């Protein structure tokens, strides 16, 4: 039995060869009008992930590489990014994947075509309610009055930020074809990915800007990331439906 020819698969796309600005250039394995972008890989490259330094180690390198290939394809064609670390044993397997999952993959590709993903994150670090006013020179009553005013102000700001963030999400959803909420670590009010048609991006960003001003005034920050290939909108298990 000969050693398999391991192929790292990055994305499913149209079966149209494009010049990718990458070295070494990945190649396209086609089946009908779909193709998978692959590159030869030593599975051993993934072995080092046990003891990695995430910031500048193997994981960072491989993840950036994966992202770079997906993006390079995405500059020319719609893509369905494959999960990081998808390694197949040769061209036959890649073709078979497209054969089995053809309809599923093509439908999903049609859905995301003409769209890009944008991430919107609202952070709000509330002033600690436990900090106390400087008591020097104050009577007990004055101290308590100040303390109460401060707590009230904190609460009003919090309510305002929450309301504005909720409105932001509602409005952005109207401009997006789809949205996906992502995990919110502490201090993050909104962490949502939006799938936006390229024709609506200007309106989408105008809304983000408008709300960002309002949120900034209340002490929150708004970050956007993107454009991304539609990573958050291709939660698909290829082949599963075909057997369902």
């Amino acid at each position, binding site marked *: 039995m000969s050693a398999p020819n*391991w192929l790292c698969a990055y994305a*499913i796309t149209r079966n149209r060869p494009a010049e990718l*600005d*990458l070295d070494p250039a990945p190649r396209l394995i086609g089946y009908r009008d779909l193709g998978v972008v692959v590159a030869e890989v030593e599975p051993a490259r*993934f*072995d080092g*992930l*046990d*003891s*990695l330094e*995430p*910031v500048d180690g193997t994981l*960072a390198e491989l*993840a*950036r*590489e994966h*992202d770079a*290939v997906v*993006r*390079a394809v995405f500059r020319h064609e719609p893509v*369905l*990014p*494959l*999960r*990081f*670390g*998808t*390694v*197949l*044993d040769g061209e036959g*397997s890649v073709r*078979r*994947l497209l054969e*089995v*999952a053809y309809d599923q*993959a093509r439908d999903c590709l049609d859905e995301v075509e003409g769209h890009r993903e944008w991430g919107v994150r609202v952070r709000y670090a509330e002033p600690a*309610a436990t900090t106390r006013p400087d008591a020097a020179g104050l*009577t*007990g*009553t004055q*101290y*308590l*009055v100040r303390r*109460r005013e401060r*707590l009230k102000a*904190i*609460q009003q700001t919090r309510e305002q930020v929450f309301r504005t963030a909720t409105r932001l999400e509602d409005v952005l959803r109207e401009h997006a074809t789809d949205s996906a909420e992502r*995990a919110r*670590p502490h201090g993050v009010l909104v962490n949502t990915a939006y799938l936006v048609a390229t024709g609506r991006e200007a309106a989408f960003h105008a809304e983000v800007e408008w709300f960002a001003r309002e949120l900034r005034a209340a002490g929150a920050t708004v970050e956007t*990331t993107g454009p991304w290939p539609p*990573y*958050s909108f*291709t*939660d*698909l*298990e*290829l*082949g*599963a439906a075909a*057997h369902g």
Partner: protein
Amino acid sequence: MTRLAGSSDSLADILERVLDKGVVIAGDIGISVVDVELLTLRIRLFIASAQTAREMGMDWWTNDPFFAPNAARAELEEKTDLAARVADLEARLLEAVPSRQEEPR
């Protein structure tokens, strides 16, 4: 390796998408994926990178049902809720107090 033309998006954002999202291949369609490694890859990545990632503020998986079913989010909500209640009770208490005579500091 070659520096790939990248984006300005942070590593945390890239990892969050690349490791956690994207199309997966069903195990039962007879295509040989490097499965033993891949099956555990996500978990191994998580364990290996958790410490430094947390230091970078990338603790998105603490709310990820895959890693922490129910736990993290519930805890967060509980904390936020408690903080709000404490502030509220404190405010009410303070409203009651100033009616008393000025007291020595």
